[in-house]
């Protein structure tokens, strides 16, 4: 890190805390937190809605507001994921796999605290790595191509093998079903429609948000209605609930290795354009499951909360690197940020990385600040919020249905998304009842299109002689990584 970078970082920090600048990140964070509590409404949607407000603003204030909006929504989505099995945003679907079972065990407070801590520390990890790596990594990012994307998708898909419990055939069938759903819509190469049944809705494929809302939230509603469970946690008094906020905070430090690994995954995936938080969260969760020797992942293991939350928040810092240095958005949120920057005449690239570096740092610090504000808010309300798990299900189910339905509708304003959520609610319930892995299904769904698109591009490039797959150092590194993380598990299972 050069003195110029450090000086710009300091200048950026003083800009953020100067009066009245500080109002922008704080105000932005508070708005983002409230919006993120409504499932389906993502930070990116809020960022787009805020664009007309910023006309005539100083570019510094725009950057401060958008840094806050980018970071403010990330953690809050995990609150509904843990408490109600409703993913606030798509990446939080990975958090609920273990977060909600923890709430069912009466450990919601611990899960929320772990999520908030991992979220704040993960974002800090991402930001620090971003600052440290700006000069080193920026030239490398454009060299990452379809072959590397393909291997990342394969790495994530291979994790499915490690999370299947019980019948392997059912697990693989669930993953196959997820892949089939991922392939709905236009063929990425030929632009021919597939499995659309002539409907407009399916032309661009099924969106993951209504599917997640259905397969987790609405399926849980059906399951709770069919079961004789009185409350989500099975307890009726606060005193009966286990866990504590301190337990959740300590758990992150106790699983420091997992936290660092997940944050690194999040930052790296964030840096790679087009992957986004959902892929980061699921790959991190898959990696945690792969190294799980206790076979408790997926059934309320706190590591299953720490890993996706750390990755999802660390990815924000990473995603700013290609966005600001190269003008390549790494996620929907950063795509909107680029659009806003363009509207205000702020050009990404060398200028922003040199003369404009204090402005860049103002954005980064605003993101950093918003992540800490949301996490602090999360920690402070973990206690009161966990009371939701002792509310009688007959009172809780109607609001869950309303919230999930509204979330599906708010996502894109299409009533069809509500029907899809309901359909997948039934599918999810049947999968749960008959022990088909819903996690395998959603992981295949998330990674399927990434796999297909880059498999086709890689094959084309290899066929046309534009790429020598095995001559790429990054390919060798990734294949080695896949072998290193997969082979020992295979060996261990074979021995046992």
């Amino acid at each position, binding site marked *: 890190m050069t003195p110029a970078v450090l000086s710009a970082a300091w200048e950026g920090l003083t800009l953020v805390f100067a009066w009245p600048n500080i109002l922008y990140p704080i105000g932005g964070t508070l708005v983002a937190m409230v919006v993120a509590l409504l499932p389906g409404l993502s930070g*990116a*949607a809020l*960022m*787009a809605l805020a*664009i*007309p407000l910023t*006309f005539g603003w100083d570019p510094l204030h725009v950057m401060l507001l958008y840094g806050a909006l980018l970071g403010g929504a990330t953690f809050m989505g995990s609150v509904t994921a843990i408490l109600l099995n409703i993913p606030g945003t798509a990446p939080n679907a990975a958090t609920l796999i273990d977060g909600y079972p923890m709430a069912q065990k009466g450990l919601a407070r611990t899960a929320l605290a772990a999520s908030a801590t991992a979220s704040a520390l993960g974002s800090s990890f991402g930001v620090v790595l971003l600052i440290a790596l700006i000069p080193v990594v920026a030239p490398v990012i*454009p*060299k990452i*191509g*379809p072959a590397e994307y393909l291997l990342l998708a394969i790495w994530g898909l291979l994790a499915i093998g490690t999370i299947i419990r019980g019948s392997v055939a059912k697990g693989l069938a669930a993953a196959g079903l997820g892949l089939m759903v991922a392939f709905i*819509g*236009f063929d*990425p*190469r*030929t*632009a*021919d*429609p597939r499995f659309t049944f002539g409907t*407009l809705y399916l*032309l*661009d494929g099924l969106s993951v948000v209504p599917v997640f809302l259905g397969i987790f939230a609405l399926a849980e509603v059906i399951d709770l209605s069919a079961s004789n469970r009185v409350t989500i946690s099975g307890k009726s008094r606060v005193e009966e609930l286990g866990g504590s906020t301190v337990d959740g905070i300590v758990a992150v430090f106790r699983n420091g290795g997992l936290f660092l690994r997940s944050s690194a995954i999040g930052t790296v995936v964030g840096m790679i*354009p*087009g992957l986004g938080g959902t892929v980061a969260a699921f790959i991190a969760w898959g990696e945690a499951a792969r190294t799980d020797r206790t076979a408790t992942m997926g059934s309320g293991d706190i590591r299953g909360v720490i890993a996706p939350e750390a990755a999802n928040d660390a990815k924000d810092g990473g995603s700013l690197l290609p966005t600001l*240095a*190269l*003008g*390549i*958005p790494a996620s*929907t949120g950063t*795509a*909107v*940020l*680029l*659009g*806003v920057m*363009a*509207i*205000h*005449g702020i*050009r*990404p*690239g*060398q200028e922003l990385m040199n003369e404009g570096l204090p402005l860049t740092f103002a954005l980064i610090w605003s993101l950093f600040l918003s992540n800490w504000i949301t996490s602090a808010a999360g920690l402070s309300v973990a206690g009161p919020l966990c009371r939701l798990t002792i509310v009688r299900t007959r009172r809780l189910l109607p609001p869950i249905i309303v919230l999930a339905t509204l979330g599906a509708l708010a996502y*894109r*304003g*299409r009533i069809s998304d509500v029907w899809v959520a309901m359909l997948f609610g039934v599918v999810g319930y049947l999968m749960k009842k008959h022990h088909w892995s819903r996690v395998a299904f959603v992981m295949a769904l998330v990674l399927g299109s990434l796999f297909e*698109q880059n498999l*086709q*591009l890689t094959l*084309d*490039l290899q066929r*046309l002689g*534009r*790429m020598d797959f095995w001559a790429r150092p990054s390919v060798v590194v990734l294949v080695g990584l896949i072998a290193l993380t997969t082979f020992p598990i295979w060996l261990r299972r074979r021995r046992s």
Partner: protein
Amino acid sequence: MSERITRRELLERCAAMCGGLAIGRGPGSVAGVAAGMTAGKPISRRTDGGTKCLEGARIRWIVGWTPGGGFDTYSRLAEPFIERALGAQIAIDNVPGAGGLVGALTLSRARPDGRTLGILNGSGFLWNRNPDSSTTPDLSREFTVLARVSRRQQVIMANPATGVRSIADLIALSRRRAIVAGITGPDSSNFATLAAVTDLLGVSTEYVAGYPGSREVILGLLRGDCDITSVDIETFGQVPDLARMNPVLQITPERSADPRIPDVPHLAGPTGLISVQPELFAGDAARARSLAAAIAAYLEFGRLFAGPGGMEPMLRDCLEQAMYTALTDPGFAEAARRAGRSIDIVAGADVRRGIRAVTDAVRPIVPVAAAAARRIR
């Protein structure tokens, strides 16, 4: 409602517009169609101030792409000015999917009461009106075009590692091996122009298709995935690596004044490469000129503000006037300039009048692009 245009101007504009229809496929006629749509002030400009037909209403503005992209940016830049002109409230609704098709179909199926409007890729519709396509709506029947906000201007960019700095270099390279072009998919406007230009040059081309967006194609070009691609001039501001690519040919009827592509020849028109260096182009000269003019005309439609088809004439005229008032507001021009977005406004009546002629003019591209698309499939 009054029209500020002399009879002579009207006749001149009409003659230019109707050239393509009257004379057939002659290159001059196609250029005439384009010129008719873009020349001078719009013929349907009105001055009675009748823009408040939807005062107090809430308008759903459909953008068929995700937030942050070019179409979304144009919409959000124009939003406050249209709101002011109409006295209505606009809610931008991003309905992404299938390269804008989902949003376009949503717009075309809405009630034509003015409460659902949006932005379209006009050029994309011209290409998609081919015999293979059954889902693409018809621009003239299923939409009411209210204004053109900007035309598409593309540049063929070459991978610097190929050493290609000019069209002659590209042709020379193609004699040694097939040229590899990078595209998002065979349904994109950039693919149509690339297919037509490489056909014009007699350059054997293979396609790497399936990149998720135009920025990813540019990255692919810089990485060496492909030799050439087609880049929209107005995205230059979002491409920090522009200087690392070699601009080879402007796909425009006249040379762009953009200082970032100085001395780069343009394709069509009397001063275009097709007229100045016809020996570079393959096959029959008349066909080459016709195809070159078709490519230029194809990009003319650019980005359109529109509503569903079948709108009442009174409402249409009012909305058109409001669009014109909003888009010619100096504040909008300044906002677009700051955002690095070019504007080239044409009133809806002019665009509507030109649709059939331009569609006819563009027809030579359809079999060429369809053949190239079949090779990808």
